[in-house]
């Protein structure tokens, strides 16, 4: 049984999407601009893209690079962030390096990386890796720093070695914060994925998008934007489910849905 409040909560995102599409449709009809197709035209182009084998291969190639870039970044960044959070020496060494990399748009590094590694998968995956790493390192660092010292002492008294404490106390204790970083990282992975394909055309979802733009196929351009947006929403929702499951113990209330009433 769903209460009216529950129903409203579930339906709200759908209404938001419909509202957005309606505004788009009206704006496009009002502007009468060739490069601004109506929402309906864009949506009509979606099945054409998803039905095209070439396009699907491109999109899957994008997703593969994104998954690898994201996965490697997470596996690299969590241990680094945790070590930085627990050791002043490690933090003092890596902090300046990260401070230099932090404000640089990762895509701006692409031309240089392309000179070294070519325009292939490695370059694009590396850029995704760079984009994901920083938020994950930062949140892992903050999470590890905040771990209560007495908790580590309790572990030490039980006989846990420093490495065991890092893996079996610092990691789980910092997990809520780490996963917040991973969630940001996931969205950044999608963004850097598209930007990297804009700079190094060859394959991928970004390639379809920008080729269509060059050829003036604006309905395809906007259809791709919708597809990329939908991918983002789905990935984020899937990640959020996993996250909520992993850190249920840290949520203030169990099984109490958010309510605005």
């Amino acid at each position, binding site marked *: 049984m769903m209460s009216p409040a529950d129903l409203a909560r579930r339906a709200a995102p759908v209404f938001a999407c419909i509202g957005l599409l309606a505004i788009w449709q009206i704006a496009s009809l009002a502007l009468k601009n060739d490069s601004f197709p109506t929402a309906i035209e864009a949506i009509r182009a979606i099945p054409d893209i998803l039905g095209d084998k070439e396009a699907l291969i491109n999109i899957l190639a994008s997703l593969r690079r994104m998954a690898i870039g994201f996965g490697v970044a997470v596996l690299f960044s969590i241990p680094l962030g945790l070590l930085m959070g627990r050791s002043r020496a490690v933090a003092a060494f890596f902090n300046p390096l990260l401070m230099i990399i932090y404000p640089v748009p990762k895509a701006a590094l692409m031309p240089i990386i392309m000179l070294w590694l070519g325009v292939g998968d490695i370059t694009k995956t590396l850029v995704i890796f760079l984009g994901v790493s920083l938020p994950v390192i930062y949140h892992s660092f903050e999470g590890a720093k905040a771990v*209560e010292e*007495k*908790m580590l*002492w*309790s572990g*030490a*008294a*039980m*006989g*846990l070695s420093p490495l065991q404490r890092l893996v079996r*106390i610092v990691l*789980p*204790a910092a*997990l809520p914060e780490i996963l917040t970083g991973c969630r940001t990282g996931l969205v950044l992975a999608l963004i850097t994925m598209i930007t990297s394909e804009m700079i190094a055309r060859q394959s991928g979802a970004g390639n379809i998008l920008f080729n269509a733009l060059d050829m003036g196929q604006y309905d395809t351009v906007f259809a791709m934007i919708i597809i990329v947006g939908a991918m983002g929403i789905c990935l984020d929702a899937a990640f959020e489910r996993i996250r909520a499951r992993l*850190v249920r*113990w*840290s*949520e*203030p209330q*169990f099984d109490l849905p958010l309510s605005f009433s």
Partner: protein
Amino acid sequence: MKVVPSRSSEWVRPVTPQKPASAIIEIDHVSQVFQTSSRRDHLALSDISLTIEERAFVSILGPSGCGKSTLLYIVGGFVSPTSGAAKMKGKAITGPGPDRGPVFQEFALFPWKTVFGNVMYGPRQQGVRTAEAEAQSLALIEMVGLKGYENFYPKELSGGMKQRVALARTLAYHPEVLLMDEPFGALDAHTRTRLQNDLLNIWERDRKTVLFVTHSVDEAVFLSDKVVMMSKSPGRIRQVIDIDLPRPRRRSELLLDARYQEYVVDIERMFDESDEAGSPP
């Protein structure tokens, strides 16, 4: 006939025959200096020497900031003293170990583990067989009065219940010495009284050595065989008082006991005097 108790039944052993007292912890001319960020060096502990006998319940009593926690951390091996040394059974303490089990005012439970998971943590780490560890942990949870709460997360427990879990978690790996740092300091008066009674009941079963930090005079007198009075700036031992009251003790009975009242009043007077002596003109 001599029966060697198995590990699992160690803590349920009824009353232990009284052995002649022997030193388990020796604190030998320990001083601790802290670098304060703004001011110069701060002498938190000054030349502390103290011997704690096996199976004794010893309280360290003193005003806030006199170095009680620091002294306990040194015995725990969490802090190494600037000078002097602490020894456990004749061996220098160089770090934490399962022979000394801490219980902190802040509980310091593992929030991602259930009550059961927290209590199981130590035995698992020590490689106790799963079935045995489980049986022991369940029995300990029952002993601290939390039967039925095994699958609760710390977030779902009150302060008093959290401290019961923390005590069970520490008892689960059979430390020879319990190091308790104002364990009931964060609890309301009613809960505190109940936990004091329960702690004594649990302690009566196997009479582990307990080093108990508190700033409450009546808590120290009620629980202890010996009260170590400390004074502030620098942290020093003022006096060590033997509390000669019969056991088992119950708080409701003890409050009416003239000797108990005398101990409390005497100790409070001594602190008053030192406060007057120590205050600037």
